[in-house]
């Protein structure tokens, strides 16, 4: 009897367990289905960066016809720098394709008759061999066709995969295809298309004229250009992305590569949402998101305050020396609580001046210097201490740092040089007819050093000459 009870108990528990796992299927598990019927037919609207086709509002799957043309053409990589680009649609990156999960995409790849080479397309949104590459290998002047069903929602890169693949990508053959989830993406105010890519040219960054592809730099993954949307300045000045305070911005960001991982960051913004790697997971409060070559990310953020927000690859030399820089210009009223702007600017002097100890060694060995020695020492001191403000030519910087060149400030009384160095100078002053109102901190140098640099100044920058000794400095010190 006891045995039977146990059996029933076990059976009941097993049943419960089965019920439990069926009811609580892992909610994050993805369900892929092709059972949604295909209704109707549409020709996909494709857009050039930074524009994005309108969101898909239909509630059913359809047959989407996508027409994409391969065009090889010379374009500018930077003002004055030309390059032979190979493109999907006539620009880099290629046209943005937007379809819906479950759609049947009928893809037409057309290779312009003027093309020198055959091309194909590998869409990462495709489930099937080569992502479509094998089915779309297209000779110049030909058109190929294949179809696929979009099983997985997400933001995907597409690229040419004809041998040598790296060179086809390095010449600009990539773009983005968005497979919008069935329920659609949340509504936002602005959507933009940004795609990073690296380019390998014979000439260095900025070298003008038609630049050839440099295979060695490509193999070393050492590009001279890392750019957003195919050109240095594609997203700056009049081409800046624009939004208004209070709007929500969504960036569809791709990285065509072929070589470099992007550390995508927008200076002065925090991404409220990031769909890392273009998938379905959402991460919040992200500063910088990694985008691998052949990968993507969707970032969303509300712009709360006005100003220029700078898109960069935070491997920062790429931004400032290789072109990976774009601007999102936000207009609208300030919000001083969120961001006040500069509230004050005052002098900060660590106690006792920048150098805390007197150079006693120098004093101990102090001996009279010849004028030549003073000029040589003075030049070295000027270069390391004074030049940052007064400049190499002694002309200073207007409205900030007074000139030493032909200076009328100390012409009549050269002692004023020594006094300025030993005591510093603060408040309004007029030099050569120009007004200045700043602060020069007092400098901690030995008497010999001050005599040297003052002698150097007197005998340079068109001043009338003269010489100081260490004893002059000692006399003038208070």
């Amino acid at each position: 009897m006891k045995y039977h009870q146990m059996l029933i108990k076990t059976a009941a528990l097993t049943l419960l367990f089965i019920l439990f796992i069926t009811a609580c299927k892992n909610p994050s598990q993805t369900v892929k289905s092709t059972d949604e019927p295909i209704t109707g037919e549409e020709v996909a609207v494709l857009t050039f960066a930074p524009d994005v086709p309108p969101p898909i509002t239909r509630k059913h799957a359809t047959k989407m016809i996508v027409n994409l043309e391969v065009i090889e053409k010379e374009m500018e990589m930077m003002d004055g720098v030309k390059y032979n680009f190979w493109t999907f649609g006539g620009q880099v990156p290629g046209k943005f394709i937007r379809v819906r999960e479950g759609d049947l995409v009928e893809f037409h790849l057309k290779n312009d008759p003027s093309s020198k080479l055959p091309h194909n397309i590998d869409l990462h949104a495709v489930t099937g061999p080569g992502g479509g590459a094998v089915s779309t290998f297209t000779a110049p002047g030909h058109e190929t066709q294949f179809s696929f069903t979009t099983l997985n929602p997400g933001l995907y890169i597409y690229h040419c995969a004809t041998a040598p693949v790296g060179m086809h990508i390095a010449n600009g053959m990539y773009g983005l295809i968005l497979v919008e989830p069935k329920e659609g993406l949340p509504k936002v105010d602005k959507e933009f298309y940004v795609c990073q890519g690296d380019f390998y040219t014979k000439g260095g960054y900025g070298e003008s004229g038609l630049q050839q592809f440099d295979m060695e730099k490509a193999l070393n993954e050492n590009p001279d250009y890392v750019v957003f949307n195919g050109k240095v300045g594609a997203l700056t000045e009049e081409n800046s992305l624009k939004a208004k305070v209070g709007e929500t911005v969504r960036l569809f960001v791709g990285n065509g590569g072929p070589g470099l991982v992007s550390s995508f960051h927008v200076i002065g913004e925090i991404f409220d949402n990031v769909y890392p790697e273009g998938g379905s997971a959402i991460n919040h409060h992200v500063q910088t998101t990694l985008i691998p070559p052949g990968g993507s990310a969707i970032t969303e953020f509300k712009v709360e305050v006005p100003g220029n927000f700078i898109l960069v690859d935070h491997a920062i030399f790429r931004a400032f020396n290789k072109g990976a820089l774009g601007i999102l210009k936000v207009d609208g009223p300030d919000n001083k609580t969120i961001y006040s702007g500069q509230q004050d600017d005052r002098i900060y002097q660590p106690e006792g001046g920048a150098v805390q100890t007197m150079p006693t060694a120098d004093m101990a060995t102090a001996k009279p210097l010849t004028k030549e020695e003073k000029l040589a020492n003075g030049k070295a001191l000027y270069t390391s201490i004074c030049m940052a403000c007064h400049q190499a030519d002694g002309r200073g910087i207007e409205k900030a740092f007074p000139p030493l060149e032909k200076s009328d400030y100390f012409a009549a009384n050269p002692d004023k040089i020594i006094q300025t160095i030993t005591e510093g100078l603060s408040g309004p002053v007029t030099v050569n007819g120009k007004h200045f109102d700043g602060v020069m901190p007092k400098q901690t140098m030995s008497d010999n050093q001050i005599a040297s640099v003052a002698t150097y100044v007197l005998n340079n920058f068109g001043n009338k000459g003269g010489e100081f000794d260490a004893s002059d400095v000692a006399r003038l010190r208070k």
Partner: protein
Amino acid sequence: MKVLLFILAWFIGTAGVCQNKSRLVPMVLIQGGIYLPLYSKNVQEIKVNSFFMDVYPVTNADYLAFITDNPDWSKTGVKSLFADSNYLNQWRSDFIFDPETANSPVVNISWFAAKKFCECQGKRLPETAEWELAARASETKGDAGKDPAFNQWVLNWVTKPNPVTLPSVGSTFKNFFGVYDLHGLVWEWTYDFNSALTTGESRGNSSLDNNLFCGGGSFASKDITNYASFMRYALRSSIKAKYCIANVGFRCVK
């Protein structure tokens, strides 16, 4: 069935009568040698015997002479089995083209037409190995395959889109063997242009696919830095015998 059709087409194409009164293009001797195909997994050296090669690609004027003798191969006369609708697309009509292009290489020519032209001259289309052997010569070297400057020059041409009007033959450089325009003007048909995809057993074919379409597969190649050569193989693999392409011409050998 496809194979049967192909053989049938070949037979008809080859069997037709052949009139030839056109002038012969001058030829030079190409010293034979060993050629290593780009997509050879093992060491598959090909021994190429010495042969004669046309100094220039066939021009529009040369081709007009051929058509005048063989109107079956004119724009309107050609059988659709042997050439697609782009055949001689740059010509205005059956016997008329822009006089300025008389000395430019003839393009938009199918493999069938190129083969027929050569046969009518008592010549033949070069095999890929022969063509590649002749084309690896720079101005000064018989084999410049490892010369970075030469490879870059070839690559630079490959990178540029086609010019609106093709220049005359002889406008590039004369190579070591005395042949002009193997690089820098147009692609050229070879007799076995599609063999990279159709030879071997089926499993081999699938890996050949990988070689051609995927960068990763390129490790199978003996010469992975010869990008221009990859592109020639890619171009050859993308076309079929009846295709007529705006930058594909030909020359003959014997």
